[in-house]
């Protein structure tokens, strides 16, 4: 009896705790990410999770919240990376501008790809985005003089810069983490704004029932295109930050495996939830890091974990927590 009461009390506490997190999602993610590098084995992994978490969140905007499964989002990660890299390497741009160029370039790429793809539905949409993603891959692969082709683009160097007169050492991994976190937090704030905006509601309406959304007076095609562009821009930012982090843009940034990773991360963490994709990215990359220390077949292990979740917890890690504690996602 006493045990039961204690359990109920704990559950109630958990519920209010998670509700608090869900209500102040930007603040909660900022606080968590601020201490994140100290619970990770090393900073580079934390940075990688930060970048791919953002990539998966941008992807989830389209996939989880509007129900469009794109298999071409590697294109935006890659475009962001390459344009930022090219800006720095070939044009000597300040890195801030180079990030801007990467984001805008990815948004334009999203506009073109979205325009061509949103006419199709379901599996055809996925296939068209996959094909267009591959086209982007080959364009960058062939433009060797600009992109370095197979070898990737080398020499994306950012060493030291000044912020308000204070020198910032970008080569210090912890400092680099916080610089990148600054941009990630802005993007997380933007995603949170989008989700609680009128457009956010229309996105979910379209995911739930396109016919009804159109009958309510919403231009489904235009809304899809707008969200596609927003999603591409956020994934482009993730790409830009990755170029700064790695100091090189590998050609695999554009590989369709990256698109697949975004899908897996979203599903593992919980598609259509705010934190889900980030959690999915963290679990996958952490597992990869741990498993590679004793076998190179880390993909098999990650694959098994993924299958376990898809079979037994189809709502993903965060999605399962929310539904078990009966927390309504709508509580804004």
């Amino acid at each position, binding site marked *: 009896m006493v045990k039961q009461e204690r359990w109920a009390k704990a559950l109630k506490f958990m519920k209010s705790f998670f509700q608090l997190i869900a209500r102040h999602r930007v603040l909660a993610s900022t606080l968590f990410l601020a201490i994140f590098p100290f619970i990770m084995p090393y900073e580079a992994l934390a940075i990688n999770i930060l970048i791919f978490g953002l990539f998966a969140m941008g992807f989830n905007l389209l996939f989880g919240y509007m129900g469009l499964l794109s298999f071409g989002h590697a294109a935006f990660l890659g475009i962001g990376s390459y344009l930022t890299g090219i800006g720095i390497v070939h044009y000597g741009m300040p890195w801030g501008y180079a990030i801007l160029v990467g984001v805008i370039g990815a948004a334009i790429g999203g506009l073109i790809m979205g325009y061509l793809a949103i006419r199709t539905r379901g599996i055809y949409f996925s296939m068209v985005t996959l094909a267009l993603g591959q086209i982007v891959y080959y364009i960058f692969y062939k433009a060797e003089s600009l992109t370095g082709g197979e070898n990737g683009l080398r020499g994306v160097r950012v060493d030291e810069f000044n912020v308000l007169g204070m020198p910032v050492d970008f080569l210090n991994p912890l400092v680099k983490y916080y610089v990148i976190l600054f941009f990630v937090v802005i993007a997380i704030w933007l995603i949170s*704004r*989008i989700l*609680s*905006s*009128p*457009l*956010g*509601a*229309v996105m*979910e*309406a379209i*995911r*739930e*029932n396109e*016919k*009804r*959304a*159109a*009958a*309510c*007076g*919403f*231009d*489904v095609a*235009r*809304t899809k295109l*707008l969200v596609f562009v*927003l999603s591409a821009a956020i994934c482009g930012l993730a790409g830009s930050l990755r170029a700064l982090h790695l100091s090189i843009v590998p050609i695999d940034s554009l590989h369709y495996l990256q698109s697949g990773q975004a899908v897996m991360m979203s599903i593992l963490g919980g598609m259509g939830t705010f934190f889900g994709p980030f959690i999915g990215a963290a679990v996958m990359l952490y597992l990869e890091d741990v498993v590679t220390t004793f076998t190179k077949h880390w993909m098999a292990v990650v694959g098994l974990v993924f299958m376990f979740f898809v079979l037994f917890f189809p709502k993903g890690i965060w999605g399962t927590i929310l539904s078990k504690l009966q927390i*309504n996602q*709508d509580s*804004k």
Partner: protein
Amino acid sequence: MNSATTTPILEARHVSKSFGKFKALQDVSTSFMPGTLTAIIGPNGAGKSTFFNVLSGAFPPSSGQILFNGKDITGMQQHEFARIGISKSFQITNVFKQLSVHENVRVAAQMETARYNFLRNAQSYPKPIEVADELLHRVNLEHLRNKKTADLAHGQQRALEIAMALACNPALLLLDEPTAGMSPEETLVMMELIRTLASERTVILVEHKMKLIMGLCKRIIVLHHGEFLAEGTPEEIQNNAEVRRVYLGQG
């Protein structure tokens, strides 16, 4: 009478619709006056649903014209129909199942105020919230406000869809078999709702159950094999020999 009341709110001129070789609708012409409640009936396969879909903008006719307040709107897209004031509910319930009941109507009501804004908080627009509260009260769903729509009973979901259709305050409301799948009690409530709706705007409904509409509307249009068969008051239709033959099976 002034001209405003003599122009039909909706008019179909020689409307035909084919699906491949199948002619679902052939040369149907009719018009609907503002403020009236009209039912479209016909046996299975009569082309009622096709006609409904053409009138409500789900797809354009293969030939012929649709006029709204005298203006040609043939070929307009579904969302444009909603924006000029033609709203509808579907035969098979179409609602946003994973959203809350209130959210369903609020999104629908947001069409006029904000469609693409992605930086402002949706809760900062008072109008759609008020409209949603009011409409939920009207269709007796306010006590289920924060429930997930998927958890509602069938009849409640249908009532919710009517509230959503009303959210853009349409001049013309089209309802496709609004009582389909409802219990007798739910049907009575729905009929009463339609009666009050018809007192404030033009309503066109497609109905299968002849008995229901006899006491409800003043004008009935009968389709048969995709063609216009007859129109008139419920009494006229009941006494029309042709209609009795094809529809009531009492020839």
